[in-house]
């Protein structure tokens, strides 16, 4: 318990009981990872952190205790394990959906497009989806607006269940409008044959 206190104090912001952006970068350098490294997302997930680049005391303590960690060294050792969690189908699903609430702006209901694209690139680096680049191109080309929670969640469903040739895509199905548009885009650009 004491060690966690010490750890927390190392990173916390001088004016509040939270670890903020500065503290997070110190933490990252201590762990010898880049701040954009996806492992920070996994860590945040374990902590059930509300927002990116911020950890409250409860979140920090809760997460590390759950992982059974009380020092930087132990945390560093756990990193490999945390990376592997992304390969687990169920955990990836949870982490992916967690990412929406975590990465979006506080107080906003939906994801800014750039943030969303960045997150998608990051996440699908861990779990391959052949259409991810087309998806991001499409969004920048045709959409230019924010991403809703429903679209975010359904996109994973799409990546999981529909094959890249779209042979099992059901146009009459309950896919969000944006995904239907994406399929049209793929046909238009002859990425896939109808």
């Amino acid at each position, binding site marked *: 318990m004491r060690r966690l206190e010490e750890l927390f104090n190392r990173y916390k912001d001088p004016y509040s009981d939270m670890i903020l952006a500065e503290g997070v970068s110190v933490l990252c350098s201590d762990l010898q990872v880049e701040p954009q490294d996806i492992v920070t997302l996994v860590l945040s997930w374990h902590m059930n952190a509300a927002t990116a680049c911020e950890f409250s005391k409860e979140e920090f303590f809760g997460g590390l205790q759950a992982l059974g960690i009380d020092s930087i060294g132990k945390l560093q050792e756990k990193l490999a394990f945390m990376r592997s969690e992304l390969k687990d189908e169920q955990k990836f699903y949870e982490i992916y959906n967690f990412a929406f609430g975590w990465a979006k702006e506080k107080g906003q209901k939906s994801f800014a497009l750039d943030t969303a694209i960045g997150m998608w690139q990051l996440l699908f680096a861990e779990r391959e989806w052949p259409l991810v680049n087309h998806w991001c191109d499409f969004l920048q080309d045709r959409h230019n607006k924010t991403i809703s929670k*429903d679209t975010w969640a*359904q996109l994973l469903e799409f990546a999981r269940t529909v094959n890249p040739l779209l042979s099992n895509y059901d146009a009459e199905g309950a896919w969000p*409008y944006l995904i*239907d548009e994406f399929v049209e885009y793929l046909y238009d650009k002859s990425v896939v044959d109808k």
Partner: protein
Amino acid sequence: MSSRQNPEPMTIEEGCKLIDAAVTKLTRIIEGKPEPPFASHEYIGNYTIVYNMCIQKPPYDLSGQLYEKYGAIFQDYDKDTILPSIMEKHDEYMLRELSRWSDINKIMVRWLSHFFYYLDRYYIARSGNSSLTVVGMTCFRDHVYEKVHFNVKQVVIALIHKEREGQQIDRALLKNVLDLFVQNGMGNMERYEKDFEDFFLTETNSYYSRKASRWIQEDSCPEYMIKAEESLKKEKERVSHYLHSDTEPKLLKNVQTNLLVLVAKQLLEKENSGCSALLRDDKTDDLSRMYRLYHEIPEGLEPVAVAFRLHVTAEGNSLIKQAEDAATSGIVEEQVLVRKIIDLHDKYMAYVTDCFQNHTLFHKALKEAFEIFCNKKVAGSSSAEMLATFCDNLFKKAANDKSNDDSTIESTIDNVVKLLDYISDKDLFAEFYRKKLARRLLFGRFSDDHERSILTKLKGQFGGQFTSKMEGMVTDMQLGKDQQTGFEEYFKNTNTGKPKGVDFTVTVLTTGFWPSYKTSDLNLPLEMVNCIESFKAHYEIKTKHRRLMWIYSLGNCNLTGRFDAKPIELIVSTYQAAVLCAFNNTERLTYQELIDQLNLGHEDLVRVLHSLSCAKYKFLKKEPASKTISKTDSFEFNSKFTDKMRRIKVPLPPVDDRKKVVEDVDKDRRYAIDASLVRIMKSRKVLPHQQLVSECVEQLSRMFKPDIKMIKKRIEDLISRDYLERDTENPSTFKYVA
């Protein structure tokens, strides 16, 4: 009767000798050979022989043997006499022989069963054997009928074929023979069916199959149908003359299948004479015949209804195309087109009610056909807009031309309501109609009766919600008259503010009923401002809690233009009047000065100036005198203007509303879709996507056909507003979030 008291019992041999003698006599009589009839003592004697032998004491009670003798008599007669006689003959002669011998047999059965009657009374009752009659008939069946029926059937069928080919045959004979088939079934129809009817139907089948192939090649559709009708009639007659009534349904079905069902497509689609041609050329008799023939057949009318629908659709589509081609510079002649569609509807509805006996299948076909082409756009105009414009022109004309017959207007209104039923975007029609109604009402070009009449009919067909706003508008006009009287009273009594020589009428519109108009901060000439203020004062006295919003763009004004030659009364819109009045104080004004003075928007000012300086009547002189208004122009009162008329109306062309109307309707649709989705989910709680979409479409279909993409978007919007959520197990099912 007395029984002979013979000490010696008679033996069977003795008895049979006596019986055989009687039988011989009998057969001679019934075969028509010369033979004196039985005397009554002989008759009684024969009976008594049998009787005595039956009552003899055993071992001389000969009932059983007598019974067998009885059977043997018939067997021998059948085998030795009847059958050979029949087999000797052919064709019709064979039939006659059979008929004759059958009758003879019946008589023999009757006579012999009288002779042997005592057996019937006691022996047969006790032993449970078949009665004498049955024995006699069964023998005939087994020893005559069974042997000849095959050949007889061949002959009968050959005769029927002859009759079908037009020759006369002996119908009574056939009736007798076929009755025999029935009788020999001994209580059921099996013999008739298996030994005759089955073969007959097979033969009929090939006969009509051949006929159909030939006729369909050679004849036109009407000719073919006449032949088919004739054939069916003849076959029905055949049944009544000699076939058993059970055969009728099977026979007719057979003929119908061959002549009508199997060739339906070829028949109906015959070029130049098929269904399409008949409809086109008004051949009501032939069409009625077609209906009659196919009506009898289960599901037989379906191909006819399909042909009907295709034809009507083609006719409608060609009208649309004609209108499209004729639409020069994007202007559609909707008066012409709508009239033509109405006429088309009347024409084909007449067919449905007359030739097709009001059958639902044809009503449905007509509806489907109209729904296809009535929803096509012509030169960018939707059918909803065209119909609204049609009504607008109709009512404007009717208001001006009082000579118009009210009943024609009424029947046109009825037609409009019918056509509206086929149009899927009814809400779009309502919006266009409302906009045009507003202009009609405000510019005084309407007849209260006509306007109310169509609204009543629309309400009846589509519900009160559809017409409530429009009814409110018409009522406002009614109330406006009363209000105006009150306003004038007010002036008489208070004498405030109203400048001398200015007559002022105000129409108060209830917001919400009327289309929304933008207000403008137009700076009115002083005279008008005074009028406005005095009305405001009057209105405030009447009602405290209402706010008046002035829509100057809808007003009009009568001005007197004091031109050099002569004064002319100008009837213009308020905007135009404001611009003209600006020249009361100054000879010359630039565009910029006008903008500043009047506070009108550029678009509006350009329109107004154009109508006053570049159009037909140039009340203002423009410098430079080009055809369009530019911001650097300047204007001067054209005192030299004159015209032979003393009153001139200067219309201000209305701004094209279409885009705005479509936008407004789209917005309303989004709300309607949201409301419908929430309503459905609230009651169903959980629903898969497909069903939600289809129920939503169903609910809204009374007013419009919702775009599936729009529904999807609304669903997503409702998800983000937390009205709905996806089921976690199955993301294509939605749950209502309480």
